[in-house]
């Protein structure tokens, strides 16, 4: 929905159990996201993000037989080759929980980088690879001792990784596009690591692609697929009625290196399948099952037909295929309805079943694979938790699902993956091509940061998400009043993740302390008073470091309408780049080194480079 909201900090927890009042504290949904099968196929291990636990499912009885509490907000899972040990990443704890698969208990926790998401293990069971989505790197960890061997530079926000069938490489899907030139289409990166040298050996760049969710190798290893979006964010979003504003598809990277990567769409001309997420191949490589978390559907892709299509395509064909909505008819065999918000998938070793984690149904869908038709859903395994939907849960379902938009082209979460941002600037207003393009903003912790939008034109979330979304984004009927209430309930409950730069004891490092003095100063270095509104605190006031003050900070560009901007909140600002209303500042430094020549965005011209660095170190702690 590309809300250009001004976010701020609220510290409510992620789960509904932690988020609001006592009435909701009993409501803990499981929210399964990822899953892995035991080697004998008898058990399914399911990461339950909402209950901060690992659920163990007996597939013969189709019931949950155990739960293992892990760290905060678990994300990814890997199973050792011998099937004895599970590794679960804890996104908020910055750890990997090591789980004894037989005893179903956590034996230890390994530290990781910031925001671990995906995890995989090499064929020998000796090395873990963890995607750190906040520190933008990959931790290479000794699986026995937990010591970190090295840290590899990834793309932006690495989210998922996968080991090749021959064990020689690990590929990483990076959720956010790499920083690129201003006002250019996104370019996302797929990072390839050699497991022998434990070094990055290849970076495959996917032009026009964003939100790379997961990656999966074909069983024979000839190619991999990565779930992605193809946003036309620099085109006016109001053109949604003409279609093709945000499309959803797959990237294909071929091995060995040399062949150009391909992109194809899973969508159809008049129907879209929003937010592709998980991918699982059948063991024979015939089919790839792809979940669409915004469409509650699993698409059955004829992987061989797709590979043949790409193998015979010229470069011109490939360029055309990337945006061709009719192409899916040539490789999509079936759409299988599943539960709400389907995410991770796992195919059984015998190729008979595919299991799907339905995050907002708290269930696992079982798809019976049929070599002719592609298969069908034959049942669901309920993972427990309340079946009653709270307002917050209903709001989250609305947030994730694309059915409210014209032709189901996108949902709120399409542009706000992980309730956050997608790193893109959007042309939202019907004011002409290329005018008033604004950077997307996070939704984390926005409850108390009204008014919303960069211009502050929406006084509350009800306005933001009601008629405005209907008119400018979804081009559909507005939400019913009860739906709007639910959606806003959810948005207000989106928590702020823990700050990675603030020490647990609350003390600031020397650099942060110096930066705090600069942030709070009211005089120039020569002792003269700062002009009114030139102190950081004038506009960025605690606790969310925002305010309703509108200001001209000297950043209006020739394509903007005249006016002023709201002061954005600064909580966890290190995750919020690029910066300024149009995303023109790629880094925090650039806000002042490039875009503040006249001291309109705070008085900074008397700062040395050391002091600017200190200021930034402090900003990261807010």
């Amino acid at each position, binding site marked *: 929905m590309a809300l250009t909201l001004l976010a701020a900090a609220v510290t409510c927890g992620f789960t509904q159990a932690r988020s609001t009042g006592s009435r909701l504290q009993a409501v803990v949904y499981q929210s399964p996201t990822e899953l892995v099968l035991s080697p004998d196929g008898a058990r399914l291990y399911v990461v339950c993000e909402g209950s901060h636990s690992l659920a163990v499912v007996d597939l013969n009885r189709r019931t949950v037989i155990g739960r293992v509490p892990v760290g905060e907000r678990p994300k990814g899972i890997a199973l050792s080759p011998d099937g004895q040990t599970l590794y679960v990443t804890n996104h908020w704890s910055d750890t990997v929980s090591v789980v004894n698969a037989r005893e179903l208990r956590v034996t230890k926790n390994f530290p990781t980088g910031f925001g671990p998401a995906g995890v995989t293990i090499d064929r020998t069971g000796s090395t873990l690879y963890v995607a750190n989505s906040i520190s933008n790197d990959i931790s290479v960890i000794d699986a026995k001792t937990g010591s970190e061997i090295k*840290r590899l*530079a990834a793309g932006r926000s690495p989210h998922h990784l996968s080991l090749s069938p021959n064990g020689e490489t690990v590929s990483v899907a990076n959720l956010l596009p790499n920083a690129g030139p201003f006002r250019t289409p996104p370019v996302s*990166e797929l990072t390839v690591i050699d497991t022998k040298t434990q070094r990055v050996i290849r*970076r495959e760049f996917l032009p026009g692609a964003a939100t790379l969710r997961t990656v999966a190798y074909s069983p024979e290893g000839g190619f991999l697929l990565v779930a992605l979006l193809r946003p036309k964010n620099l085109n006016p979003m109001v053109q949604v009625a003409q279609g093709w504003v945000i499309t959803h598809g797959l990237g294909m990277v071929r091995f060995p290196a040399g062949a150009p990567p391909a992109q194809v769409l899973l969508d159809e001309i008049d129907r879209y399948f929003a937010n592709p997420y998980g991918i699982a191949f059948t063991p024979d490589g015939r089919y790839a099952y792809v979940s669409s978390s915004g469409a509650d559907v699993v698409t059955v892709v004829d992987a061989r037909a797709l590979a043949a299509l790409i193998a015979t395509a010229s470069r011109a064909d490939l360029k055309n295929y990337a945006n061709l909505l009719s192409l899916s008819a040539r490789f999509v065999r079936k759409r299988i309805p599943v539960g709400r918000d389907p995410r991770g998938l796992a195919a059984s070793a015998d190729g008979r079943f595919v299991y799907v984690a339905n995050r907002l149904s708290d269930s696992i869908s079982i798809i019976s694979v049929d070599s002719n038709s592609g298969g069908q859903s034959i049942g669901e395994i309920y993972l427990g938790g309340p079946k009653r939907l709270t307002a917050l849960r209903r709001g989250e379902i609305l947030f994730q699902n694309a059915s409210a938009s014209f032709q189901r082209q996108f949902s709120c979460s399409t542009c706000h993956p992980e309730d956050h941002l997608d790193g893109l600037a959007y042309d939202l207003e019907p004011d002409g091509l290329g005018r008033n393009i604004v950077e997307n903003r996070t939704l984390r912790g926005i409850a108390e940061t009204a008014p919303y939008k960069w211009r502050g034109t929406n006084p509350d979330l009800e306005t933001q998400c009601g008629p405005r979304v209907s008119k400018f984004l979804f081009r559909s009927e507005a939400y019913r009043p009860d739906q709007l209430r639910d959606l806003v309930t959810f948005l207000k409950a989106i928590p702020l993740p823990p700050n990675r730069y603030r020490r647990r004891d609350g003390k600031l490092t020397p650099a942060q302390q110096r930066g705090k003095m600069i942030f709070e100063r009211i005089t120039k270095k020569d002792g003269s008073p700062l002009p009114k509104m030139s102190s950081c605190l004038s506009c960025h006031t605690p606790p969310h470091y925002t305010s309703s003050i509108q200001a001209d900070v000297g950043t209006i560009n020739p394509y903007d309408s005249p006016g002023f901007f709201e002061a954005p909140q600064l909580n966890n600002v290190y995750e919020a780049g690029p910066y300024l209303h149009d995303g023109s500042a790629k*880094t925090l430094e*650039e806000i002042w080194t490039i875009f503040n020549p006249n001291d309109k965005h705070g008085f900074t011209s008397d700062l040395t*480079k050391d002091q600017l660095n200190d200021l930034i170190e402090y900003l990261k702690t807010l």
Partner: protein
Amino acid sequence: MRGALLLFCFTAWGSLPWVYGADAVASPSVPSSPPGVQEPRGNLPIYRHWENFSVGDGLPDNKVFAICVEDDRVWVGTENGLGLYEKGAWRIYRPADGLAHRVVMSLAVDRKTGDLWVATLGGLNRFSAGRFDTFTQLNSGLSNDVVYAVAIQDEFVWAATAAGLSRLNTRTGEWALFNERNTPMHEIWCYNLAVNDGKVYVAVWGGGVLEYDVATGRWKDYRDPDGEMEIVLFRDSGLIHDVVASVSYENKILWAATYFGVSRYDGRHWQGFLEKDSGLASNFVNFIKARGDAVWMCTDKGLNYFDGKTWITYRRKAEGSEGEVKILTTANTTSLTTPSGPANNYILAIDFQGDDIWVGTAKGLSRGIRTREEKLGEDTRRSR
């Protein structure tokens, strides 16, 4: 200088002059070698064969400022781009490819990750599997875009710039700046770096040598005790000169190359080397790099090797393509004419690839190829 060459070298491990030269009589007072210094063992690195590269061979530019060997790959920093020599072929990277600036001054490979760090006159690059990341004074905490040197210390990347030192924590993204405000840095023109064994040494152009102890975070400065810019008065009492172009730290020995000679420091004693009384080809030393117990010095008049006993100078003859190798020991001087020599005698950089050496000059890149028979005493033509 063939024949009657008489060189004096005041050693750190003895107070009497150490007599070099073909005509010199071996003095009974010649001191024993200090701990860790190798005796000549008959396998000195005598390079008779040189493979030279120029723009015509694919080199990005003939002025070579930096070389970094990574196994079978040779990275070369030039005045007009970054070059990679691999499997007999060159690949060139320029600003259009993402290089921060065409002038590449220094290179460092992170041995863990394989990432190449590139110091340029327009910022710092990380080159990782085909992707250039650029850090400048505008988009990052780097103190200045004129980056003369880069070095890796665990997860930290150090950059020597025209405005002090910058240190990037690659895990947190935090930049720490070191300059006259928080270190004993007398000048902020930091020209070279050496990281090894828990120390970071900085060659400060006009400011001596700075030492950073990784464990304690403490700084220490080493200055020329006579403070004279034109003459060397107290050679073995401290750093030989404050205009330091390069440093190297190996086996607990600090080597400092200045434009007025070379200094060696073992943590207790300083020893200076000058052209006039050692085998040093020139007092104007651009770059220095120790390998084991030996040290290589890149001067404006040739390449020097010194292992504590023996000096070797590699040069290209003034006419033709032949090279000359001059070997200076306590006993004699030997001069060889070799079939080929370095591309040029203005030497700017060196790195090692097995027994071979790669040498950057002001007019081309050279690879010194060492073959088994090239040992002292074999097939040599003595100067006397």
